[in-house]
């Protein structure tokens, strides 16, 4: 049994007086114990909403969530708010994108780390403070004891993200969800945080869902990658497979638009043409069709299904054949 099994997860936002919007459209994937799985896609593809649905953090009003999210066999979508509250921080941890706005500006780092220990481990404040200092040390924050009394604005961006990671991992959750954890950071700090995450999941055996728009992040970290487009998974493959031979034109486009150091001089980057707003609804055909270089007439009429192909899952009528030029 997988640690986390997401089956046919659908999230529909319904605002009064507006047409319902399907942010996540039948997404399925699984995360094994200790595995790192990537959810990749551009803004608005539903990757963050998926993570919030797993955490039970979507607002209750105006949102319809259906499908199934099983964690160690237990169905999370039908659990009561109280049960989910008990799970969050204990079984499921989460790290968010912007470390400054994700920390409470008027509460010291120490309290923000210890509160999760007090809540789930029933520790006293003084015991929790000792543990918190160890945690900060573990995530590579120098002089942790002094940092405990400091406030978020006194820490650098990288330190803040480290502190958030320490909070998320304080109770040794089985699953950590990282939602664009490096997007708001400098490039050098990004690399440090990714190295830290990969070391921590290795040491603690925590499974990790890495949500990102950055395939570079995925390349260094993930065992398996799910590429999302317009709320659906369009390609799923093991990391090496995906990078060596991207099959879906969208994945291919994403990879081709990354600048490479070993590319011949003067070669232009190939952007994916069009924008997300050009999509057609999945019910009509392939949502990516209007932007797709490999588009067939069929793509605009028949919705492609997820099919096993060449050791991976693919949702495409006319996948890419050739290999990416190395």
């Amino acid at each position, binding site marked *: 049994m997988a640690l986390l099994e997401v089956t046919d997860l659908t999230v529909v936002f319904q605002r009064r007086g507006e047409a319902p919007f399907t942010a996540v459209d039948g997404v399925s994937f699984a995360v094994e114990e200790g595995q790192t799985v990537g959810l990749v896609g551009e803004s608005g593809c539903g990757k963050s909403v998926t993570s919030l649905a797993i*955490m039970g*953090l979507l607002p209750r009003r105006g949102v319809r969530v259906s499908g199934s999210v099983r964690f160690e066999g237990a169905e999370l979508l039908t659990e009561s708010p109280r049960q*989910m*509250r*008990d*799970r*969050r*921080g*204990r079984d499921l*941890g*989460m790290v*968010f994108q*912007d470390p400054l*706005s*994700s*920390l*409470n*500006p*008027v*509460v*010291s780092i120490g*309290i923000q780390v210890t*509160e*999760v220990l007090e*809540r*789930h481990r029933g520790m006293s404040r003084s015991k929790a403070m000792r543990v918190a200092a160890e945690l900060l040390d573990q995530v590579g924050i120098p002089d942790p004891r002094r940092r405990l009394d400091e*406030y978020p*604005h*006194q820490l650098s961006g990288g330190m803040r993200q480290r502190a*958030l990671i320490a*909070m*998320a991992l304080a109770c040794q959750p089985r699953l950590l969800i990282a939602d664009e954890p490096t997007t708001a950071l400098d490039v050098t700090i990004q690399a440090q945080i990714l190295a830290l995450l990969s070391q921590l999941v290795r040491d603690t055996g925590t499974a990790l869902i890495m949500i990102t728009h950055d395939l570079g992040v995925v390349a260094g970290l993930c065992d398996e990658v799910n590429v999302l487009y317009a709320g659906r998974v369009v390609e799923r493959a093991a990391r090496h497979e995906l990078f060596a031979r991207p099959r879906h034109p969208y994945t291919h486009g994403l990879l081709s638009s990354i600048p490479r150091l070993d590319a011949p001089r003067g070669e232009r980057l190939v952007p994916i043409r069009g924008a997300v707003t050009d999509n057609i609804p999945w019910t009509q055909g392939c949502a990516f069709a209007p932007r797709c270089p490999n588009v067939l007439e069929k793509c605009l009429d028949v919705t492609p299904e997820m099919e096993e192909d060449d050791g991976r899952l693919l949702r495409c009528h006319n996948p890419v054949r050739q290999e990416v030029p190395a």
Partner: protein
Amino acid sequence: MLRYTVRRLLQLLGVVLVLSMLLFGWLRLLPGGPVSALLGERATEESRRQLTAQLGLDQPIFVQYGKFLGRALSGDFGSSTGVQPGDAALEVFLQRFPATLELSFFAIVLAVLFGIPLGYLAARRRGTWLDNLGVVGSLVGVAVPVFFLAFLLKYVFAVELGWLPASGRQTGGIDATRVTGFFVLDGLLTREWDAAWDALQHLVLPAMALATIPFAVVFRITRAAVLDVLDEDYVRTAESKGLTTPVIRRRHVLRNAMLPVVTTIGLQTGALLAGAVLTEKVFAFPGLGEALAIGFERRDYPVLQLLIIVAAMVYVLVNLVVDLSYAVIDPRVRVR
């Protein structure tokens, strides 16, 4: 912090000096004057001249101001001509200050005690009937003139229903011992429970009337601030840690939402005297507000000068306290 406080207090001196000049001139520009107020319309020219000279009002205004300033520095603010004729203005102030302080304290406590929790609740239940009722109610609260509300409260609860006393601070027959001038506190200190209870009953209606506007403003600001904070990423982080609702409410929502609310409470406290003038007049509550009202009617220059300067000082001091309290609530202010 100390240097900051000292600088602000020095600024206060400047404010008081400039205000005293403006006020001095402005009061004398009002139509009528203490002489007409004291002697009435049909006084002889002779008696008018005599009283004008007696009050020193026949001298040039600069001379009058110079004399006022000189005496004020030694604590003599002149004698009341209208509010409590013959008493020193300072005496009038000292006698009445505890009454207004007591009334304002209860009014602010009422406003905060109801405004903050209800504001929080309305934000949490945004868009429900409770929220809508609160928003409309607070709008009415801000819009209804204080004197009208005071009359209404007095009429319904004192005159018609007879539940609460209609005027004054204490029922005549009660022989209470005075210690601090705060009647409720006096009653508690001297264990004269009946006196304390009686004084408290006298406070209820005026405090309610006076609390309406601060309550409505505190409610609205709390609601808006909580709505802002609920959208913040750090509240989502707190939720992602599985913290209990009380911890999230207290530590993560209210602590941040309180920053604008504290400013509001300060401003409202400073502005309370304006409401007190009307409220105290309606309930014949012998405080500074009533003295101001009577003072204006009878053109009691010495009393008006002193009370308005004190009101301005209170306003500036309250704002100083608010600014300093920011440093306590917000660590980002402390370090800078």
